[in-house]
């Protein structure tokens, strides 16, 4: 009974948090991109555009969902559902924290503890192509079709280097369970450098990490591999015809995929919830210091008379006090074993999401043939070589 109740609560919480994260990933993307491009970004809806995701959601919900007369209605409606369902499912195997005791039950933040977690993830990411392929085909539009063709080819091609890059750290840890993978990355070289898989002792997986990241960009259709929706060529690619919540589903799927793949990268290569440096040197204090600093900065800016926006004079102190109040929570001994690891996990995954956005603001887009050539003649052999070297060293050393 307890187990079912707990799982239900966790499911509801995970869905809520993930969907909110997706919505705010869009906000963060727009803000970061805007600041790279000398613009303020969303600013009107709520303080600093913080309610923009909500406004977008209401707009999309109330729009009419148009099914073109020449589209295949069944597959046309199936595609966005498939895309978003698969994208949201993948998060269930990610372990966010180590296990802890709650009301006498051992549990962890994270839905399941699947012992074939990695295979499950790979299966889901392969299925993800179908949403886009079917959507592009069912729209019966030339731009959509070209977008989905490109996308299918791209995602299938990049799955190989992605899988190869995943396999090499697996050789080091010898398990498919994501929780165990993280637990095995515990500890520090020379008491300072974390024993994450990027810095693993026989063969550091830094190259594998880079390959994984590049393939992840392609898998999630992001710049510089955003050909399926290359708006300067294909208008909007595979979702040209979609409107309303059907479009929002594709959009949500894209961001859910980004968040998931960043979490996977964190688990596989960046040591999951393990801190950047040992707790003896005060890594436990990082969240406290960060939150307190952010809170103080907000209060400082709230005190500035030059703040032009009416909102800021009210919201800055509120958020400032909120963050200051949140800071000591990380010092409470009971909550510490949960919150500190959770903080480190979110920080690492969040940084990777930021890298995704950063790259979008910097690089141009690859051309279709160059993209394929890059995958097959460069990335794939490289990942294979990485795997080979890792395997050899592990076999000889082990």
């Amino acid at each position, binding site marked *: 009974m307890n187990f079912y109740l707990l799982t239900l609560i966790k499911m509801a919480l995970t869905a809520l948090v993930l969907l909110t994260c997706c919505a705010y990933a869009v906000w963060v993307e727009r803000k970061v*991109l805007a600041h*790279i*491009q*000398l*613009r303020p970004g969303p600013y009107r809806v709520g303080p600093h555009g913080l309610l923009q995701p909500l406004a977008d959601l209401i707009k999309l919900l109330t729009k009419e969902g148009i099914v073109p007369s020449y589209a295949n209605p069944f597959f046309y409606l199936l595609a966005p559902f498939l895309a978003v369902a698969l994208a949201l499912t993948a998060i269930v195997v990610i372990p966010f924290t180590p296990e802890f005791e709650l009301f006498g039950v051992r549990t962890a933040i994270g839905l399941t503890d699947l012992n074939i977690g990695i295979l499950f993830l790979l299966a889901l990411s392969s299925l993800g192509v179908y949403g886009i392929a079917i959507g592009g085909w069912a729209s019966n539009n*030339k*731009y959509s079709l*070209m977008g989905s063709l*490109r996308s299918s080819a791209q995602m299938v091609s990049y799955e190989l280097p992605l899988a190869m890059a995943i396999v090499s750290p697996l050789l080091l840890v010898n398990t498919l369970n994501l929780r165990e993978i993280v637990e095995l990355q515990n500890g520090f070289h020379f008491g300072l450098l974390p024993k994450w898989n990027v810095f693993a002792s026989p063969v550091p997986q830094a190259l594998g990490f880079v390959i994984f990241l590049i393939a992840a960009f392609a898998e999630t259709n992001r*710049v*510089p591999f*955003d*050909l399926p929706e*290359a*708006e*300067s*060529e*294909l*208008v909007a690619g595979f979702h040209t015809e979609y409107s309303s919540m059907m479009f929002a589903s594709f959009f949500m799927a894209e961001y859910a995929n980004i968040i998931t793949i960043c979490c996977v990268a964190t688990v596989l290569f960046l040591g999951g919830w393990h801190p950047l440096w040992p707790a003896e040197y005060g890594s436990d204090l990082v969240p406290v210091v960060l939150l307190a600093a952010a809170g103080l900065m907000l209060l400082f800016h709230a005190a500035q008379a030059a703040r032009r926006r009416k909102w800021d004079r009210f919201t800055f102190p509120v958020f400032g006090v909120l963050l200051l109040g949140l800071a000591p929570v990380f010092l409470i001994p009971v909550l510490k074993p949960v919150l500190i690891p959770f903080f480190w996990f979110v920080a690492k995954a969040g940084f990777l999401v930021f890298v995704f956005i950063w790259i*979008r*603001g*910097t*690089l*141009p*887009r*690859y*051309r*279709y*043939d*160059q993209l394929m050539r890059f995958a097959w003649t460069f990335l794939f052999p490289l990942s294979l070589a990485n795997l080979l070297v890792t395997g050899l060293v592990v076999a000889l050393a082990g």
Partner: protein
Amino acid sequence: MADTFLDSTELVLNMGPQHPSTHGVLRVILKLDGERVLGTECVIGYLHRGVEKIAENRTWQMFAPYVDRMDYVAAVSNGLGYCLAVEKLLGVEAPPRAQAVRVILTELNRIASHLLWLGTHALDIGAITPLFYCMREREYVLNIYEKYCGARLTTHAFRIGGLQYETYEGFEKECLEFCDLFEKKIDEYEELLTGNRIWQQRLTGVGILTAEDCKEYGVTGPMLRAAGVKWDIRKAQPYSGYEKYDFEIPVRENGDTYDRYIVRMQEMRQSVRIVRQAVADIPAGPILAKVGKVIKPPVGEAYVSIEAPKGELGYYVVSDGSTQPYRVRIRPPSFVNLQALDKMCRGALVADVVAIIGTTDIVLGEVDR
């Protein structure tokens, strides 16, 4: 291959007039084999306003603002060409002071036009950020225009016979400030794009137009120079005192999209050089030659061409001795350069078409007139 059971036909794709990267209302009909382009057909005229016909029932002065509306991102160059043509018909020449100011404003306009090209071209290739940087610098130029004549885009900066307005106080200083600032900014753009491997891969070898092709199609401007022909009307047939200034004509040899990009980037640097020289030596004196309130050129015809940012901009004006032009024929560089689109696109990929349209640097207002 007709007897294979999997028979396939070419895909005809309609690109535009509503498409994010056709720079206005250009419509390109593509015939595709997969992603490869078999042929293209341009449909133009969505922005046709009959500018040449309008000229025939306006007076000579009244028509001048209309030419600003052709290439609206390089309105000053358009105005200069028209004024020079009518001046040639009248047999007058603008005073030296007016000529120097004209050169400054025209070169600043070349920079503004190239900046807009660079931003949109990068946007087409998928780099979204340079557009905003380019717009930031373009703003300085537009502010100078606004202070000088009150308008930012369709300026109508010049008058037949010289200038309407004297330069404002601090004009020279602001131009020099812009030059100082802009030279650093070009380095910034080059850092973002020129050395970028994706950028190079996307542009190199795409849309090649050889010198022979250029001559056959009548392609001029940076596209011609990127193919290795050292032809710039500012040097070949100097007008408005360009012979006084020391500058180089950037030339490349391959004639692909990358070379056109490099040529335009270097042209901006040369424009800065010209502006510096011109600002340093603006002669004193009148700004308007004696042309009278009513302009009645003698019966005759004149052709004047100038080096507009996009290529050779020609005005052929015919007078029947009245206050109105008998005929004004305009040779817009965008229109002529666009002819080579099909030649460049054949065998390319869909993504290249966008790059090629971007590098042709067309303005549909000028193509359609």
